[in-house]
């Protein structure tokens, strides 16, 4: 089992094949932006672009975690509920201690705990990750409601808002956070052994296990990271609302998954890049923004979002079948 050749299979030859897919994504994004600008010129203003980036960053931050989980061949549907619970919890800690850093750390810790729970359910209890995270999604949402009595908690410290509404130079803070996290995890996923392990597990979990990879431990680590990312996103959202909302993030998990799949991450695992996922998220972000700018009734938003989700899964299936054909041809 030459790890180097495995890496080559997952990194380079696939990379070549996939760069074609990424080009088409970038083109699609450009086309959308052009159409939007023609229909409503205010789309291309710097204020609006910053808005789009800031609004997309909520999905993007959680998306970085989701990409790794799906690359591994698993899924996490609890990220939406985590938005609610971590948001509520961190605001509660903020009000109780008066310290923003402490609230942030507390929220992160809770996120990591949720991730640990998910990871253990999937690895030790051996529950299918779709079912397991569907269950934790409901439980976490329930805890958020029970602990608050379904009433939101207002943040008593105004400075907390800056996490969501502040700027560093011309860039909104959430956008800066997204770019930094993206850069870090781009490196980890595509230039470290850890990243290759994730692809390996997603590509063929039995082969990975036989190669000696600590599959269970890696899965738990990735789940913990995934929920930690969802927690960061949750706190940015809470900052934007200067309150913890127990019904935040409803349907959020579907948006993240759809964006990530649109960007080329296959649901079965082992295929896709972080950059592609990002472009997918931008496409959805631009779509959402343009629909509001064009004053389209929100009932249409649901139709548009549903259509994109179906499109994403259809494309995923087509891509997988094409990939299989190519791999079979490559080994002949």
């Amino acid at each position: 089992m030459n790890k180097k050749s495995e890496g080559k299979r997952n990194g380079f030859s696939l990379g070549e094949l996939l760069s074609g897919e990424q080009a088409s994504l970038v083109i699609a994004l450009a086309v959308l932006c052009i159409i939007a600008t023609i229909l409503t010129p205010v789309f291309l203003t710097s204020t609006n672009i910053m808005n789009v980036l800031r609004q997309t960053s909520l999905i993007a931050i959680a998306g970085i975690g989701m990409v790794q989980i799906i690359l591994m061949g698993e899924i996490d549907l609890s990220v939406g509920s985590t938005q609610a619970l971590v948001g509520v919890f961190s605001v509660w800690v903020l009000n109780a201690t008066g310290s923003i850093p402490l609230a942030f750390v507390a929220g992160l810790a809770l996120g990591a705990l949720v991730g640990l729970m998910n990871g253990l359910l999937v690895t030790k209890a051996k529950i299918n990750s779709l079912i397991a995270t569907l269950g934790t999604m409901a439980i976490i949402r329930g805890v958020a409601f029970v602990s608050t009595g379904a009433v939101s908690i207002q943040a008593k410290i105004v400075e907390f808002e800056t996490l969501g509404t502040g700027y560093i130079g011309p860039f909104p803070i959430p956008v800066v956070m997204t770019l930094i996290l993206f850069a870090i995890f781009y490196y980890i996923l595509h230039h470290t052994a850890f990243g290759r392990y994730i692809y390996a597990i997603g590509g063929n979990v039995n082969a990975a296990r036989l190669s000696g990879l600590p599959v269970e431990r890696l899965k738990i680590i990735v789940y913990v990271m995934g929920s930690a990312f969802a927690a960061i996103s949750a706190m940015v959202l809470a900052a934007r609302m200067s309150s913890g909302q127990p019904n935040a993030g409803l349907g959020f998990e579907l948006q993240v998954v759809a964006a990530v799949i649109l960007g080329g991450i296959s649901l079965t695992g082992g295929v896709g890049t972080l950059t592609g996922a990002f472009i997918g998220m931008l496409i959805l972000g631009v779509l959402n923004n343009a629909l509001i700018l064009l004053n389209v009734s929100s009932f249409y938003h649901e139709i548009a979002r549903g259509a994109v989700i179906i499109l994403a899964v259809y494309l995923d299936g087509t891509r997988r079948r094409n990939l299989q054909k190519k791999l079979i041809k490559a080994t002949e």
Partner: protein
Amino acid sequence: MMEELTMSKIRTIGSLVLAGALMVLAGTQAFAAGGQEQKGEKKLVVGYVVNFMSHEWYQNICNGAKDRAGELGIDLRIADANLDVAKQISAAENFITQKVDVLVLTPVDAKAMGPIVRQAEKAGIPVITESNVVEGAKTYVGISNQTGGRKAGEWFVQYAKEKGIEPKILIVGLPNFEDCRQRVAGFKEALAASGIKYEIKQEVDGQGLKEKALAVSQDALTAHPDVNVIFGINDDSTTGGMAAYKAAGLDESKLTAIGFGFEGAVGQGALLSGGPYKAALAMFPNFVGVGIVDAALAISKGEKLPAHFETPTTVITAANFNTFYTKSGDKNVMNYESIRGLMKK
């Protein structure tokens, strides 16, 4: 292999441009409607983010606002938050980007509006809220819930005296909402001031929904089958209580039900059917919509508005129904002039 690559490329681009085409279709519809500001005089632009346009109540508010905006030549843009705070904030941000003249909000959660109100202030855009007080907003448009509850109570006291009823009251409330607590408080205020003998048998939480109201009222009526008055904080609560009363096999002719809100088919149907629903405190949502536009216009002119821009309420019974509503086909159309007559300004 090269052909396959190109095929999937084409398919990918094609499918994603389809998504864009969806936007074009939707956009041309919206564009045609809203793209007239370039022509001629500068119209006043009002951006209104509703919290829940799927509900008849808010649809009425929007209709009233649109009618009024049309009358006054104001460009009214409405976005729906669909009970999602994040969506409400995004929509408000987008209105701010579009540099609307006035921003109106029906908050999904009043506590979450702080940041967006501050953002609007920084951009020089005044904020008006509907039905909820939010710090930093110039005024709040809506009824006075306490006054409304009291009017309903006063009407009922009069009715009880005339009919010689000794009230044993079931209140179907919604204790989580400040508005609804005030309605009940106003009702009780009128009862206490009246001097008549009455007893509040129980207060239940119907969550403002008919099925929940039905369920909790059934339990309350099991415990207190001698209840002869039901007061609900909205029409669904009242009719839910009424349904529970009927299901318990009690004599409906002995029941007096008073509704609150009277926003649509539920209330009107119940009132005109000649059953136990005798009266309701009408909140005239269409007129709240009118109020929003009027307040926005006033603010844009630099007028100072009171902290609470109160919209009118009145008790409607089968007797005075025709003063305020005229039958048009099988719909009941609101009579704006009569309602305006109620406003003391």
